[in-house]
C-alpha cells in the first residue's frame, strides 16, 4: 500500500466541517422534534454488534459489512442499518405488555462501498420503527410521518413510490409454481432489468395468458386506477389480500391528504430482503438516488424471539441535505475584541448577550494578527479596548 498522506481518511469516511455540521444539526432537530410530536421515543444502540446476530439478520449484503474481531475472537460488525438492532432491543427488552411501541433513532450506519470508493461508507440515518402493530394504519402512519418530517426539514418537492413485496411474491408464485422460479423472476425486478424480465417471461413454459399477465404486471404503476388492473390480473383470488391492503392504504393517504405525494409502483422491490408487505421509497427531483425508504417487516422480530409485526422508515441525512441544496442560513456571530484590562467588562457584556440568545465570541485583541481580516470575518464586531471605564468604541 502506498504511503498515506496525513489528511487521508479510510475510504468512504468523511469529515463534517462546522458549516455542514450546523446545517445537518438544523434538519436533524427539525425532524427529531416532529417525530417526538408523533409520540416516537428516541433510543441508541451500540455501534458494534455481533456478526452472528445483527450481521446475518440484516438485509445488507455480506460484502458491504465492515467486520472486525473482538479480543475473544468473535466476529463483530459495524452496524449497517438500524432496523435490525432495534428489532433486537425491542424483542429482548421492550415488548412487555403487548402494546405497540414507537421508537426512533438518529445514528450513523456503515456500509463498505464496492465501487467508486469515495462514496460515503458511513452516513447518518434518522428514522422510526413502529413495532407490534399489524394494522395497515401503522403503514399509513409511517408514510405520513415521513412526509411530515421531510416537510419540517424544509423539503417541498418530493414523491413517494409505494410497492408491495407480498403481492409480487403471491402473484408470481401463483403463476410460476415454485419458489425457485419466483426468485429468478423477482431478481430481474430487483436488478431493474425490464428487458431481461420480458425476455425471461417469453422463455418460460407458460400459457400465453399467464405470460401476458406477467408482462402486464409491469404496468402496475400509478394511483388508484391501478387497482382495477391489479384485480383483473389475479386468479383464484390469490394476492387479493395485498391489493385490498393497498386500497386501504390509498384510503388512508387520502385521509391524510397525501394523494399528491404518493404513487403506487408494484414493480418496486427492495434490496432490503426483510420486507414482507408494503414498502416505499422517497425521491427528490434533484438527487439521483432515493433519499429515504421504509416498509413492513413482519418476520424480523421473530428471529430475535418475539413474533410480531413492525414497520418503519429511514431518511438519509446526507441525501436530504443534497436535495435541500445550499441553504446556509448561519446564525450571526458577534466578535468582541477586548484588551486584557477590560476583560471583566467584556465578559459581562458577552454574558448578557449570550443570555438573550446571541452568539458571542470573546477574543483577546492580542491574539489577532490582522484586525481587518477579523473585522470582515464576523457579522458584527465590538471593540472593548483601552482604559477601563472609558467608552472606546471604534
Amino acid at each position: 500500500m502506498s504511503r498515506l498522506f496525513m489528511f487521508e481518511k479510510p475510504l468512504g469516511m468523511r469529515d463534517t466541517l462546522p458549516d455542514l455540521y450546523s446545517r445537518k444539526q438544523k434538519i436533524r432537530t427539525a425532524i427529531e422534534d416532529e417525530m417526538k410530536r408523533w409520540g416516537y421515543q428516541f433510543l441508541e444502540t451500540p455501534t458494534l454488534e455481533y456478526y452472528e446476530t445483527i450481521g446475518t439478520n440484516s438485509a445488507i449484503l455480506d460484502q458491504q459489512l465492515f467486520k472486525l474481531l473482538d479480543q475473544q475472537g468473535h466476529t463483530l460488525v459495524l452496524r449497517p442499518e438500524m432496523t435490525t438492532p432495534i428489532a433486537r432491543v425491542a424483542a429482548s427488552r421492550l415488548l412487555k405488555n403487548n402494546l405497540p411501541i414507537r421508537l426512533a433513532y438518529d445514528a450513523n450506519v456503515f456500509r463498505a462501498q464496492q465501487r467508486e470508493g469515495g462514496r460515503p461508507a458511513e452516513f447518518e440515518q434518522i428514522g422510526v420503527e413502529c413495532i407490534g402493530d399489524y394494522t395497515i394504519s401503522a403503514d399509513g402512519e409511517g408514510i405520513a410521518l415521513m412526509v411530515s418530517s421531510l416537510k419540517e426539514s424544509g423539503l417541498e418537492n418530493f414523491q413517494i413510490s409505494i410497492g408491495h413485496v407480498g403481492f409480487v411474491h403471491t402473484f408470481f408464485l401463483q403463476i410460476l409454481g415454485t419458489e425457485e422460479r419466483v426468485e429468478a423472476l423477482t431478481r430481474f425486478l430487483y436488478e431493474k432489468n425490464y428487458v431481461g424480465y420480458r425476455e425471461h417471461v417469453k422463455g418460460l413454459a407458460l400459457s400465453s395468458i399467464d405470460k401476458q399477465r406477467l408482462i402486464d404486471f409491469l404496468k402496475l404503476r400509478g394511483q388508484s386506477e391501478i387497482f382495477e388492473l391489479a384485480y383483473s390480473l389475479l386468479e383464484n383470488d390469490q394476492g387479493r389480500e395485498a391489493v385490498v391492503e393497498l386500497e386501504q392504504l390509498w384510503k388512508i393517504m387520502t385521509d391524510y391528504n397525501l394523494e399528491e405525494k404518493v404513487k403506487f409502483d408494484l414493480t418496486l422491490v427492495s434490496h432490503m430482503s426483510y420486507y414482507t408487505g408494503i414498502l416505499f421509497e422517497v425521491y427528490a427531483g434533484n438527487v439521483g438516488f432515493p433519499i429515504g425508504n421504509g416498509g413492513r417487516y413482519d418476520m424480523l422480530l421473530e428471529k430475535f424471539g418475539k413474533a410480531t409485526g413492525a414497520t418503519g422508515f429511514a431518511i438519509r441525512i446526507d441525501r436530504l441535505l443534497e436535495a435541500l441544496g445550499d441553504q446556509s442560513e448561519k446564525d450571526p456571530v458577534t466578535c468582541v475584541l477586548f484588551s486584557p484590562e477590560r476583560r471583566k467588562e467584556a465578559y459581562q457584556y458577552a454574558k448578557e448577550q449570550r443570555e438573550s440568545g446571541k452568539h458571542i465570541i470573546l477574543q483577546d485583541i492580542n491574539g489577532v494578527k490582522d484586525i481587518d481580516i477579523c473585522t470582515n470575518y464576523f457579522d458584527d464586531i465590538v471593540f472593548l479596548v483601552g482604559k477601563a471605564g472609558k467608552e472606546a468604541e471604534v
Partner: protein
Amino acid sequence: MNNFLTIAMPKGRIFEEAAELLRQAGFQLPPEFDDSRKLIIDVPEENFRFILAKPMDVPTYVEHGVADLGIAGKDVMLEEERDVYELLDLNISACYLAVAGLPNTKMNDVAPKVATKYPHVAAAYFREQGEQVEIIKLNGSIELAPMIGLADRIVDIVSTGRTLKENGLVEYKRIVDITSRLIVNPVSFRLKDERISEIVERLSEVKRLQSCNAL
C-alpha cells in the same frame, strides 16, 4: 422544468443508429446533431438536452441522475453493473461478446492470461467456467494482445468478425449477445414517468413496425 429530459448518448458506433431511431419515433432532432462536436446539445422544441458521452460512461451519468435517460450497450451494462432501470431493448448495434485467440492454441497452463476492455465480464465468465485466469485490462486494440504474446485469449466485442479475421484471430466461444438498451435513472423513472413512458411507447412502436417489416 420537470418536463425537461436529459438524455446521455454514446459517442461513436451506436450514436448514428440511436439518432436514427429517435427520428423514426418522430422526435425532431436538428440536422447538425450528427456531426456536431459539442458535448451538450439542447433541443428546446422537444424539451430535450442531449449529452454526448463515452459509451462506457453513459450508465454512470444515468445512475447519478445527471442524465434521466441513456442509451447504452448491454456490454457496458454488464461491465458497469450500475443501479439503473433497463427499460427497452432498442435492438440496434447488435453484436456479441466473445473469447478469441490465435488459431489452434491452448490457454497457458502455468499463467493463463486474458486481455480485455471488460475485466468484470471476463473475470465472471472464466470463473463460471471454473478457470482462474489473470485478467489484463486494455483500453483498445485488444486484438494486439495475443498477436504479440501479452495474453492467450481476449474477450471483446465482435460484430462482423472482420477485425478478428484480418488479424489472424479466431473466435473460441460466444459469451453473450449484445444490443443497445434504453436505460433510466430510478428517481427520474418515478418523478418523470409520464414523459418517459411516452418515449418508451413511441420507441417500442417503431421497433414493433420494424419487426413486422422484417417478417
